[in-house]
């Protein structure tokens, strides 16, 4: 901390009691309460209930739903699957974005055109992004599947769980690269040019400069993106999975957030689904705390 908080408050201005500040924050409070707090509360409440599929009878069961999840091998598998999926998405989208940003940072001609094109995928809605990849990899119609077939590889993500997982990872990664790219590029461009020049004179080639100067200096951004990407892979990939595999084949691409949907809206196990979303909620809170506690304090130089 450079300044103690009080240092700027040389003169504290006191306002009399007024309705104005309350009125100004009221819309935000209203939205938060109605669209976030209320559903969250409902989910917590529901997670203690067992309901029949038609909603005719409801029974309060305390933590039974959670106990069931704990003993459900499918749920445990989903957990590790989600972890695998998130790590892969985070790893690939971060590293590809890092490479692209590193290149774009060095481009001089048509730089704006390159950057604009690299940013486009971010503007594509998740479901559409999913649809795009399904088309390309469709076992009967897809251009990529066709090409793979020419090389003697029989691609069928509708039957092969591993291929299905690879496909959703690809789609989710592709969509996130743009976002990461933007942040990486901004971070790289905020590094003073003279640092790069100094290291060039000191004898470092482009790759050396990247690993010894640029990469260490963008660490804060990398940490931030790592958290954002994990959250993205956990929660925002629903649309992609829904469009590409619908969690299949045989649940091999069902990640936590998809299972919440599947159990709740397809399986109509509302209590079980609610308790899963409570667990997800706890995970987000945990990640957010980590981010605030450790990452926001940035490794600053």
């Amino acid at each position, binding site marked *: 901390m450079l300044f103690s908080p009080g240092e700027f408050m040389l003169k504290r201005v006191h306002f009399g009691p007024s309705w104005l500040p309350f009125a100004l924050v009221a819309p935000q409070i209203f939205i938060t309460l109605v669209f976030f707090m209320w559903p969250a509360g409902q989910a917590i409440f529901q997670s203690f209930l067992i309901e029949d599929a038609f909603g005719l009878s409801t029974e309060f069961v305390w933590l039974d739903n959670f106990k069931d999840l704990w003993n459900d091998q499918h749920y445990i598998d989903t957990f590790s699957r989600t972890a695998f999926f998130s790590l892969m998405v985070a790893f690939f989208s971060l590293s590809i974005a890092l490479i692209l940003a590193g290149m774009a940072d060095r481009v001089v001609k048509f730089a704006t055109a390159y950057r604009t094109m690299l940013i486009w995928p971010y503007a594509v809605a998740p479901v559409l992004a999913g649809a795009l990849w399904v088309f390309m990899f469709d076992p009967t119609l897809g251009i990529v599947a066709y090409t793979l077939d020419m090389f003697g590889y029989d691609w069928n993500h509708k039957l092969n769980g591993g291929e299905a997982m690879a496909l959703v990872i690809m789609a989710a990664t592709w969509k996130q690269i743009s976002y990461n790219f933007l942040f990486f590029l901004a971070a790289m461009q905020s590094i003073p040019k003279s*640092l790069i*020049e*100094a*290291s*060039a*004179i000191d004898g*470092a080639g482009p790759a050396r400069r990247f690993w010894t*100067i640029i990469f*260490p200096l963008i660490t804060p951004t990398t940490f931030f993106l790592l958290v954002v990407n994990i959250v993205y892979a956990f929660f925002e990939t629903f649309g992609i999975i829904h469009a590409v595999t619908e969690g299949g084949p045989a649940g091999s691409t069902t990640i936590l957030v998809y299972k919440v949907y599947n159990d709740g809206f397809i399986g109509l196990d509302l209590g079980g689904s609610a308790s899963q979303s409570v667990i997800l909620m706890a995970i987000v809170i945990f990640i957010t705390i980590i981010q605030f506690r450790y990452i926001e304090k940035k490794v600053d130089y």
Partner: protein
Amino acid sequence: MAGVNIQNIKKSYGSVEVLHGINVDIKDGEFIVIVGASGCGKSTLLRMVAGLEQITEGDISIGGRIVNEVEPKDRDIAMVFQNYALYPHMSVYQNMAYGLKLMNLSKDEIEARVAKAADMLQIGDYLKRRPRELSGGQRQRVAMGRAIVREPSVFLFDEPLSNLDAKLRVTMRLEIRALQRRLDVTSLYVTHDQVEAMTLADRLIVLNDGYAEQIDTPLNIYEKPASEFVAGFIGSPPMNFFTGTISGNGKQLELDTGSIMQIGDYPVENSHGRNVRIGVRAEKFAPCNKDEAELVLNVAAVETLGSETLAHGFADNTDSNDFNNSIVVKLAGDARPVVGEVLPVRVMPDGLHLFDMENGKRI
């Protein structure tokens, strides 16, 4: 150890030419200062020597080897940047050792070189600190240290002192000069500060708008500026300029304001009737009696600097509000002219500089 030869160097950005053919031969161990107003291309020239900027035309050779296509790291140079460009995530030691590691020197050799440079610059106590934990002057020393440890044959300085406060700038200036003498390394130093330029340089390059107006020793430049630009740029307070005509068969100058100045033995031949620009430095005016005055000033402002007193004034029939056209006269430190006073002065015998009306070249 090596000299630097700059041959007809040109630089263009697209269709805009910013350097129009610079020629200078820098001897081994010479301290060359490139001075000029901002945007004159002085940093560009330095960066071309460093290899950070492509050469549009011409040749640069270091130690007899043409380096136009040579990577910066292979040019055997070291550079000190204006903002120091220290690696913020590395300690002072790591900053200085970075380049040496890339040279594949042994660990002992690196330690020895860093220790030697740190000792020379008195930064031995800070080797473990990060750059942000250092003051401006200390960072400056580290940047110098990083250059020294490479033991290059040419030092390049890009306005290295401009981020320091006035007092520190004077000390560092002296230190840089002493260090350069001691190491005897060819140096190119870019600055817009003419005091730095005058005090540091063996030879000065005065750049104006991409042209080298004059390349000479500081004193020669001060005493015999090659053009009106150089005359106005070097020296503080700036030289006074008048417009006039040579008359009296090359013996007199008739100023546009009506005053008459004696030319003395300034070499002007067959120039009767020629329009010229006349330059006189502030210290080359001598107060005198009213009847032998060449110029009579109405004093409009007085700056007492202690060691000297500057009187700014206007000749009778000039606009006495525009201080861009005021005439400044340097008086002794104990002189006390008063605003509104009339100050008769004459030009000392060697005080005149005449420049061509059109191209500004010295006559």
